[in-house]
């Protein structure tokens, strides 16, 4: 179920992150192809979030290579990496509570990001239509004028996914998107992510194995900062090492 | 041995000989006749070596030596007087004080030196040796020889040897001069340097050996200056440490920014003042300072606990508001003290055992109170470290800081821990106030001068690291004092502030940063 053959968009090799002697990532290697949808699972503390942090520039790796297309991500800061076309949804939905849902989407919209460009920014009818289109996709059309701070947890999850769509990135990093969603919403999310993949690459970190199964993609299992197993969901679920990690002894 | 006996004999001769007796009696009428005569009389008294001359010369120095209308010399004692020659009481009516000019003063200094060199009191002899050394007069050679022979205290002997060298240098004997130059070179003091420079100007043939000696002196002076700078820096560092330790708890550990911290330091100083006033006139008065330590701690801790429970706790998670609020509290405290105690400085007296100057090996001078502050700073630091590491409160405090919710579920009353921790940090500010009352003016704005520096120490050392605070305080103290001679105190401060800002560029979390996930929060 891997995407285009031999066209890696994200390339991690031998990546280690050490905090005060504690190895959060241990010689991790991972390749994501262009247009691929990939799920990452693993127990708590396996290094999933740290891996996201390394890719998005929040954490600098102690050792190893991190490349996005031809760019060396270890040399860039968060903003530059985001501008390259990597979007991230956080485990805990994070947005700007004082701004309305509309304004949150507007900020995420792909456009020049400098202070003067922002000062001169005029909302074009096309952009407004795009925002309204995304709002419809995430089911927030009726709440566009409300401040993000008053939205429910599920709506915030959706809003953040909407912001990700507005950013129009080549690679989406999605951390636990369905936490706090109803079954129906979860299904909708899986559907959405499957649709997005193909044009873009999507990496999903998730605990919910049913959801991962619904994604129907290649799965990477992380444990103690390293890759434990990789393959289809059925393959990894039957891998004895994975069973040992999840069930213990 | 032979020489020793000879010296003793000579000394005896000097002390008791009829010539000396005559010298004493003959010298008296000259006093106060004219400046010239007074000076020569003083010189005679000095040369006589007669101990009876000492009180007369001292009286002259103190301005209590009187000359009656009939030419008798009297020692004034308040309204009464005694005759200097006979010791009998005499009326002081109409007697005029003997006046001094510079020539008389210089004669008086060396004469006093001469007489005191043989005094039975060791401190008097030491002072006299210094005086004779400074006068650097060849006339004193014989006298110093005598004194040197009788002297038993090694430190005074050393002084006398230097004095002898200085005197010999002013003399005529070439070989003695050369030796004197070497001796003075070893002395490594600014006085020796001056004497050598004078000798060089007077006798060009000595230029070469004197230059050698001068280089030696300069080297040891530079060394001593460096050592003194270090000690001063250490002492400033301890002050900063004391002021910053409380912040390291409230800001570093709890994350509460308390701009009233400087005012807590000020309260500690005023508590010291209050304890001193309360104990004035009681047998406990000499112990006011040690007793002020717990008093200041408790008072500021109580104010801190009130501030935390009453105000700060409502602003947790809003650091900028906390900053402004506590700044306002600081203003109110300052103004309250200003109205209550007045704006002028209050004097806190150092107990006798903290006064005076201590001479460390190598001639490094250090005032006693600075030494005590360094010791106090280190002691408080160790106590704080121990308190956090080994007490129940310390454990609960660390638990609450790391994970408030889990600590609460384990039955720790987090509110109580917050209050106690904040009170502890505030109490430490009070301790800093006790220390500062010894070296700074106790005034309502005492704390303002220290608050920014203290924050810099905590930020520089690494927020949350007590060890970082220690290293940060001492480093900043020393850097400040090292820069001062070149840049002046004010610019040194400016440089340090700029340097810290640049330093934060490289290490945004300070010297001893917490790393990893805990630091992200």
């Amino acid at each position, binding site marked *: 179920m891997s995407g285009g053959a031999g066209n890696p968009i994200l390339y991690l090799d031998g990546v280690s992150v050490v905090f005060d002697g504690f190895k959060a990532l241990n010689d991790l290697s991972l390749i994501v192809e262009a247009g691929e949808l990939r799920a990452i699972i693993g127990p708590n503390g396996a290094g999933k979030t740290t891996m996201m942090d390394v890719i*998005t520039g*929040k954490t600098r790796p102690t050792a190893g290579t991190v490349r996005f297309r031809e760019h060396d991500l270890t040399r860039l800061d*968060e*903003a530059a990496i*985001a*501008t390259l076309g990597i*979007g*991230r949804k*956080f485990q805990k939905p*994070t*947005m*700007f*509570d*004082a*701004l*309305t849902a*509309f*304004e949150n989407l*507007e*900020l995420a919209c792909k456009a020049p*990001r400098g*202070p003067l460009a*922002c*000062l*001169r*920014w005029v*909302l074009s009818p096309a952009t407004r239509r795009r925002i309204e289109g995304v709002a419809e996709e995430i089911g927030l059309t009726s709440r*566009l*004028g409300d401040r993000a701070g008053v939205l429910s947890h599920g709506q915030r999850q959706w809003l953040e996914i909407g912001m990700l769509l507005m950013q129009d990135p080549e690679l989406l990093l999605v951390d636990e998107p369905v936490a706090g969603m109803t079954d129906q919403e979860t299904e909708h999310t899986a559907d959405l992510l499957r649709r997005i993949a193909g044009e873009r690459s999507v990496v999903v970190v998730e605990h919910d194995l049913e959801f991962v199964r619904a994604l129907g993609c290649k799965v990477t299992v992380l444990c103690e900062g390293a890759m434990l197993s990789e393959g289809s969901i059925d393959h990894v679920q039957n891998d004895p090492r994975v069973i040992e990690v999840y069930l213990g002894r | 041995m032979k020489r020793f006996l000879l010296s003793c004999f000579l000394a005896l001769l000097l002390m008791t000989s009829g010539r000396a007796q005559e010298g004493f009696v003959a010298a008296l009428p000259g006093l106060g006749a004219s400046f010239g005569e007074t000076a020569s009389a003083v010189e005679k008294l000095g040369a006589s070596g007669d101990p009876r001359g000492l009180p007369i010369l001292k009286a002259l120095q103190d301005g209590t030596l009187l000359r009656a209308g009939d030419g008798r010399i009297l020692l004034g004692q308040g309204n009464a007087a005694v005759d200097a020659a006979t010791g009998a009481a005499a009326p002081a009516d109409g007697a005029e004080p003997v006046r001094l000019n510079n020539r008389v003063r210089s004669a008086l200094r060396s004469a006093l030196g001469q007489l005191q060199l043989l005094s039975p009191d060791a401190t008097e002899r030491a002072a006299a040796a210094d005086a004779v050394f400074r006068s650097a007069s060849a006339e004193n050679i014989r006298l110093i020889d005598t004194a040197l022979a009788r002297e038993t205290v090694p430190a005074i002997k050393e002084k006398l040897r230097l004095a002898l060298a200085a005197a010999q240098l002013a003399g005529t004997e070439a070989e003695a001069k050369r030796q004197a130059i070497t001796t003075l070179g070893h002395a490594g003091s600014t006085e020796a340097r001056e004497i050598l420079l004078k000798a060089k100007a007077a006798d060009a043939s000595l230029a070469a050996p004197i230059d050698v000696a001068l280089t030696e002196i300069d080297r040891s002076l530079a060394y001593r200056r460096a050592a003194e700078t270090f000690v001063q820096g250490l002492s400033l560092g301890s002050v900063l440490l004391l002021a910053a330790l409380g912040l390291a708890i409230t800001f570093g550990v709890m994350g509460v*920014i308390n701009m009233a911290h400087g005012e807590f330091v000020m309260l500690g100083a005023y508590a010291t003042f209050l304890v001193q006033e309360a104990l004035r006139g009681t047998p406990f008065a000499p112990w006011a300072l040690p007793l002020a330590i717990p008093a200041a701690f408790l008072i500021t801790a109580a104010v801190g606990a009130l501030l935390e429970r009453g*105000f700060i706790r409502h602003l947790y998670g*809003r*650091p*900028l*508001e906390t*900053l*402004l*609020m506590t*700044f*306002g*509290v600081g*203003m*109110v405290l*300052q*103004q*309250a003290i200003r*109205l209550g105690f007045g704006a002028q400085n209050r004097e806190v007296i150092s107990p006798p055992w903290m006064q005076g100057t201590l001479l460390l090996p190598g001639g490094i001078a250090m005032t006693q109170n600075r030494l005590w502050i360094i010791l106090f700073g280190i002691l408080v630091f160790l106590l704080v470290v121990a308190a956090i590491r080994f007490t129940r409160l310390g454990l609960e405090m660390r638990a609450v800081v790391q994970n408030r919710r889990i600590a609460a579920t384990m039955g720790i009353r987090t509110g109580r821990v917050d209050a106690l921790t904040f009170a502890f940090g505030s109490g430490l500010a009070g301790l800093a106030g006790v220390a500062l009352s010894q070296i700074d003016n106790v005034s309502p704005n005492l704390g303002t001068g220290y608050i*920014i520096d203290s*924050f*810099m120490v905590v930020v520089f050392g690494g927020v949350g690291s007590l060890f970082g605070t220690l290293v940060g305080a001492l480093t900043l103290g020393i850097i400040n004092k090292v820069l001062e001679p070149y840049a002046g105190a*004010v*610019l040194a*401060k*400016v440089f340090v*502030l700029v340097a810290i*800002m*640049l330093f*934060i*560029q490289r290490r*945004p979390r300070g010297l001893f940063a917490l790393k990893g996930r805990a630091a992200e929060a």
Partner: protein
Amino acid sequence: MTPAETPAPERGTARLALRLLLMAAILILAMLPVLNQLPVDSALHVSDFIVSIGGKWITYAVLALAIDLAWGYAGILSLGHGAFFALGGYAMGMHLMRLIGTRGVYGHPVLPDFMVFLGYKELPWYWLGFEYFPYAMLMAMVVPGLLALIIGFLAFRSRITGVYLSIITQAMTYALMLAFFRNDMGFGGNNGFTDFKELLGMPLQTANARAVLYYASLALLLVSLLLCWRIAASKLGRVLVAIRDAESRVRFLGYDVTQHKLFVFVLSAMIAGLAGALYVPQVGIINPGEFSPGNSIEAVIWVAVGGRGSLIGAILGAFSVNALKTWLTTVAPDLWLFALGGLFVAVTLFLPRGLIGLFSREKRA
């Protein structure tokens, strides 16, 4: 503010009322120097004192506006804005000193009195050009702007935020105060600059000069207000609010946070500098005391009292706190510091959105 939403009706009326109040306030402010010209026995006469103190407060209001732009919108709580204000003031002061010319005590044609006194032979290089008014006004903006650029660049680049930034800016103004107290800096040391004679050919002690300076200040206030409004209403304003509330999230959206913060910080410093430049000729003196950290933090409390994040609030705060100060320092001088300290406590604890928060029910930005 976005076109997508329709404002709630009550919010609309509250805003309209506020706008009308604002227009009335501006009108009254604009009338003061005119009323000052009325005969003294007229009921509408306004005293010289009111005009001169009004002009001073207007410059304070501009400073408050500058602080609010950085703090209320971008979350940069600068405790050193007094330094930018004072630097602008010093630039103007240097110009005014050059204009004294031979009227000084020593009558030196070029050197100000204090330089003659200190034995200067010629003007230090950094004094050159200050005899020209446009250059001095340019410097009143450029110097604070440059300082803000350097400090801001160092701080924002290494992601020094929140209270750390506040303390650093406080240290900055403290260091500048110490430096300006020194005689050898060439800025008049302790005494600073005073005894100004004229500006742009107007003798300073006249009603005419007072009125001109007053209107200049009012114009600066209105221009700054419009500029800040323009920023607040633009996407930049929303980026700044986003930075204030979740700085790192803004980075992950691809915005260079350092650039945005620098932009607003430098702009804010330049506005503060201009305010200082207009303040100095109206009070007739500038000295290193203006750099004292207490001044900066007092200006911050104006904004807090008025309501941070609201531009009108900042102006309202500057006027009301200074009115309280003027009244209290004449009635009961000892109480003023208690009142000011109390304001800090009361506003942060009980009125986090300031006076303006009392007007609008719903929380804006």
